[in-house]
């Protein structure tokens, strides 16, 4: 397994997505996305126009795109890189050209921002959303508490509006409006409640 290596030769162009669990050596051209759990080597003359998510990255060629490397990034002297770079270890040789941001801090956060977001989109139940939300929204700290704070204040009609899209009755209290809460509700809301009865 360790000696296994995928090579994209000089005369080859890949447009699309490359995923896998082995080392990848690029001498040609890749447009799209690269997601490898091992090492990616971009040789001199190679051009990569893609978001890159790898364990380790060694660049002698050209990379345009955001880079996330969970272990290390090495930009050798002939490297040309444009894009943001997130990795705990980053080294650049004299002569390497780089334009973009470097982030040696929270690689996981950078990865979820660059890579995981589109992958998480397919159908989720409201329960899953509630479970998944706190860690993902942990970065913009203000965003997380907002919905939970707002919902109880607008006691009666607001939850109904919010849950119309989700078919599952995840909020059991929604259809029943207690008289106590309707007493506190604004006039326009009361009218609606009366109509409903």
């Amino acid at each position, binding site marked *: 397994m360790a000696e*296994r*290596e995928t*090579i994209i*030769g000089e*005369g*080859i*162009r890949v447009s699309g*997505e490359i995923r*896998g669990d*082995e080392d990848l050596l690029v001498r040609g051209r890749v447009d799209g996305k690269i997601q490898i759990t091992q090492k990616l080597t971009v040789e001199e003359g190679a051009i990569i126009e893609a978001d890159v998510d790898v364990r380790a990255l060694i660049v002698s060629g050209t990379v345009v795109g955001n880079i996330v490397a969970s272990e290390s990034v090495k930009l050798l002297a002939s490297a040309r890189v444009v894009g943001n770079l997130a990795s705990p270890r980053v080294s650049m040789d004299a002569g390497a050209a780089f334009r973009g941001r470097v982030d040696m801090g929270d690689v996981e956060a950078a990865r979820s921002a660059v890579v995981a977001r589109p992958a998480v989109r397919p159908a989720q139940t409201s329960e899953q959303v509630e479970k998944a939300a706190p860690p993902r929204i942990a970065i913009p700290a203000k965003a997380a508490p907002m919905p939970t704070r707002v919902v109880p204040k607008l006691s009666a009609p607001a939850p109904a509006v919010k849950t119309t899209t989700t078919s599952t009755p995840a909020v059991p209290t929604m259809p029943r409006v207690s008289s106590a809460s309707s007493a506190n509700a604004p006039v326009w809301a009361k009218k609606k409640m009366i109509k409903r009865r």
Partner: protein
Amino acid sequence: MANTVIGSSIVIDGEVSGDEPITVLGQVKGKIAISQNVTIEAGAHVEADVEGQTVTISGRVTGNVVARERLELKTDAKMVGDAKAPRIVVADGASFKGNVDMDV
């Protein structure tokens, strides 16, 4: 070992094109358009239209294959799709479903 190799754990979603020989051990979905030889090894899984000079298949291919020179289905090959090539070799044991066009 110098040429292009798509390793067994690799999945490519999109198009692979170029002018040098390519060997596929992994998965390719989309399209392979190469002006040189294309080898699809046993264990490989290609869901793509394949175009090459000589196309040699030992793995699984779903899609149309056009070989400018020769198409070869080896013993382990499983192919579903139309084949177009002036010369076609199908080894004993290979399975194939689709149309054949030898340009006659």
